[in-house]
């Protein structure tokens, strides 16, 4: 038997033992020693679940420094195939990389070259997109834009130099495979000294897992837009004095807008995972009290924006989307789908801390544990109250504020402010233009556009959806400042507007009212031109918008050290501007990273060409 196979077998045994130990070590939870056959089966499937995650993601890992099962070097082999993945004792069909969900951690070093050989063992095409990596377009991994895709049985070799450092990830760009587990993490160490010092690192890949096939989720939403929202306003709620007043409800109903429409695919169908582990499996990362622990947090969800906090621990954000930022301390942050944040925590006490990622609609959460040793469980706070959207989320400006607010004001310091209610709101329907085409002449009006923001606001200085009134510190985009000066100091030579458009009832999503499938033209850029791109959200949901192959600077505050990102979450009824230096020749994908919004048509091709090359 070859050495590798022997090692593999040995490893399996070791993991099983560890999983069983975990299992026996949870007093006070429902994870008691199995006494019944059913319990035993559940235990068995938990063991299976533990085996379906790679070593670095395994519960009880000491962190990356102890790193087994991390793929490094210049020659990396990945295999995409079917697998079963167990969460909470229930196994489901996954599309896995090297047999695990999430896939292996790929750890590289800035300046190296890498050859990634990806073998497709599925019966359908697959692909891997290296999210956030700067590379030649033909290796970006989007079938139909970068390359033809990877056919069943084929091996495709990606071959490119590593020009950056930080926390990134990879995922399928074929069909809805990503929603079934086809993702993994990438950590790239800088060529020089890392300006972020830490004693220990953990990678935490957040995801949303459902035994319902993503195509079925999509169909259900097309059939019934609010299908998975079980937190709507009800008559019982009204009678109990919850939520909006009767007058406000009437006003929203008149507009056919639902203030509870915060997420469309929700915790009703999802179990949220950290490194493939649900709340029951309780992923645990170890630390020694006093250590500086770097958490590399990746939101690999298909459809879930998370609010992340570690009750009892201050979090210092040191990087966003792989790029270092000037350290900023906070207590909670929202991470849009496809974003990454690196944070430093320094737990001093010999106790367990709960790492909490809560869906922004509060329909579910996952708790992982940071602990000095195995067998401890971080506290799980109760789900917080589902937030309600306001007129501001409809792009109608700040109608719920009675004035007197000044820029830079912290929402949390405004006593008695209730963003959920709308005090003093006039109910004069005539003054509310929620679908006035003159505010966005470029948008093609039609069945797919139910709303246009008449007064879209720059909300980068605001707390994200639902966190307006939290008593603790909450990260805003505007707090992020790049650690290194922005490289391109030019002012933009032009600007373009892109409207994020939708009709939630029909579950139609698009840019500028045109689905990609309708023959949308590419967004064209000249090579090395500097362009300001204004994203205007004409929907009531946040959209994490991702541009492939480039970084951009989110336009906030003085120029020079604006945060450098690959994905930016545009708040409902808000606008975000970014400056782009179109320095990567070729064709690239540009889309909402809510997988089903993308699948519904919120997608474009971006072209970067020399002027003389334009055919």
């Amino acid at each position, binding site marked *: 038997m070859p050495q590798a196979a022997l090692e593999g077998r040995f490893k399996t045994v070791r993991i099983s033992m560890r999983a069983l130990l975990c299992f026996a070590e949870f007093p006070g939870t429902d994870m008691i020693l199995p006494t019944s056959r059913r319990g035993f089966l559940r235990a068995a499937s938990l063991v299976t679940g533990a085996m379906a995650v790679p070593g670095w993601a395994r519960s009880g890992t000491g962190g990356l420094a102890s790193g087994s099962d991390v793929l490094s070097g210049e020659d990396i082999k990945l295999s995409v195939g079917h697998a079963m993945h167990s969460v909470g004792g229930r196994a489901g069909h996954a599309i896995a990389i090297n047999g695990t969900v999430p896939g292996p951690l790929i750890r590289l070093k800035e300046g190296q070259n890498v050859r990634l050989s990806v073998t497709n063992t599925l019966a359908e095409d697959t692909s891997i997109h290296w999210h956030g990596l700067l590379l030649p377009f033909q290796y970006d991994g989007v079938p139909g834009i970068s390359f033809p895709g990877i056919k069943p049985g084929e091996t495709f070799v990606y071959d490119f130099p590593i020009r950056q450092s930080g926390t990134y990830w990879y995922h399928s760009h074929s069909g809805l495979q990503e929603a079934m587990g086809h993702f993994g993490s990438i950590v790239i160490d800088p060529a020089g000294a890392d300006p972020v010092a830490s004693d*220990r690192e953990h990678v935490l890949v957040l995801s949303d897992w459902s035994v319902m096939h993503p195509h079925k989720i999509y169909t259900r939403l097309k059939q019934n837009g609010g299908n998975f929202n*079980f937190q709507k306003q009800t008559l019982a709620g009204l009678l109990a004095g919850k939520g909006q007043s009767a007058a406000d409800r009437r006003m929203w109903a008149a507009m056919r807008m639902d203030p509870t429409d915060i997420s469309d695919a929700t915790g009703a169908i999802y179990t949220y995972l950290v490194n493939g582990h649900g709340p029951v499996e309780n992923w645990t990362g170890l630390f020694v009290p006093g250590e500086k622990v770097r958490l590399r947090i990746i939101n690999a969800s298909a459809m879930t924006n998370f609010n992340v906090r570690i009750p009892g621990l201050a979090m*210092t954000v040191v990087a966003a989307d792989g790029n270092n930022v000037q350290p900023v301390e906070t207590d909670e942050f929202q991470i849009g789908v496809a974003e990454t944040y690196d944070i430093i925590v320094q737990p001093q006490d010999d106790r367990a801390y709960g790492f909490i990622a809560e869906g922004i609609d509060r329909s579910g959460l996952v708790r992982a544990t940071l602990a000095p040793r195995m067998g401890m469980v971080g506290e799980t706070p109760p789900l917080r109250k589902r937030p309600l959207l306001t007129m501001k989320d409809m792009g109608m400006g700040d109608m719920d*504020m009675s004035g007197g607010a000044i*820029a*830079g004001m912290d929402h949390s310091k405004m006593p008695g402010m209730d963003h959920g209610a709308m005090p003093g709101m006039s109910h004069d329907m005539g003054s509310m233009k929620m679908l006035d085409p003159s505010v966005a002449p470029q948008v093609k009006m039609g069945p797919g556009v139910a709303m246009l923001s008449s*007064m879209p606001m720059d909300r980068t200085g605001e707390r994200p959806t639902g966190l307006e009134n939290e008593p603790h510190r909450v990260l805003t985009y505007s707090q992020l400042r790049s650690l290194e000066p922005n490289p391109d100091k030019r002012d933009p030579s*032009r600007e373009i507007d892109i409207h994020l458009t939708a009709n939630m009832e029909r579950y139609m999503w698009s840019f500028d009212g045109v689905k990609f499938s309708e023959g949308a033209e590419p967004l064209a*850029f000249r090579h090395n031109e500097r362009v300001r791109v204004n994203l205007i959200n004409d929907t009531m949901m946040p959209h994490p918008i991702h541009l492939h192959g480039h970084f951009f600077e989110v*336009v906030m505050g003085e120029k020079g050290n604006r945060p450098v990102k690959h994905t930016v979450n545009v708040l409902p009824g808000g606008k975000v501007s970014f400056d782009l230096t179109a320095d990567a020749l070729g064709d690239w994908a540009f889309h909402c990273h809510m997988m089903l919004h993308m699948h519904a048509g919120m997608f474009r091709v971006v072209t970067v060409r020399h002027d003389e090359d334009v055919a």
Partner: protein
Amino acid sequence: MIRTTIGAIVSLALVPGGALAQTAAPTADLHAGHTMPMATVPAAADPHAGHNMAPPATGDTIGNAPAPAPPTDHAADAVWGAAAVAPSRAALRREHGGFTGSMILFNLAEYQARAGTDGYRWEGEGWFGGDINRFVVKTEGEGDVRGPLEKAEVQALYSRAIGPWWNLQAGVRYDIRPDPQRAYATLGIEGLAPYWFKAAGALFLSTKGELRGRIEGFYDQRITQRLILQPRAEIEASAQSIPEIGVGVGLTDIELGLRLRYEIAREFAPYIGVEWAGKVGETARFARDAGDRTSGTSFVAGIRFWF
């Protein structure tokens, strides 16, 4: 506590060399002036300045260079060959907005308990197609449990989304009952009215030149997340008297219902309710003349389901 000991040893073993020593690093200076970066005040020219929490973008001037023409070629073709990329490019288009699907929904499928002979009733529809263009089949009917089928109609329609909320529908309707059977050309509109009312209205022109009409609407009042009260109304009218099928001129039928369902799953909801149905005007006279009831109240129980 052997476990604890093992855990501690493992923890220690996993600490990388020198990790316990404090390292001097930029992260040591965590609070240095970064927590409140919004000290500046927006330009007074901005009419919404008082409300805008975002720090202003300062020091930027934006040019007005023309946008380049979108290229018509594809970068990947030059690397992999046009023939190799073409199929995935077509799939890319399809898979980013090219939805095709279907839905079959029976809003009513119920038993009706009432004075005299109990009855049954159904009303369902199915759509097949994309976001804009759909083929729609509708069917409704009713009868007495011990009698013959009284009414049964099937519609086959082309449905086109004509705005965010409304679909225009045109096609044919065929009434299997009452006898003699009739065929109609149909033109209607269906959608979501303000205040979340589901509403539909249609005109029917029979092959014999008779014009009839129908409007209906309902509202789903959530009492809890799964308990839903559905008030429902339907009114029918005819432009002329059609005695052979008992239809008079003017308003012909009025129906008012109230159904309470419990969504065990979104797709499956048993319900109970009450319905009042009445014939009016000349239609009522025709019914009286035939010895039929002209109005009555039913207690109903059924299942609303879709897939």
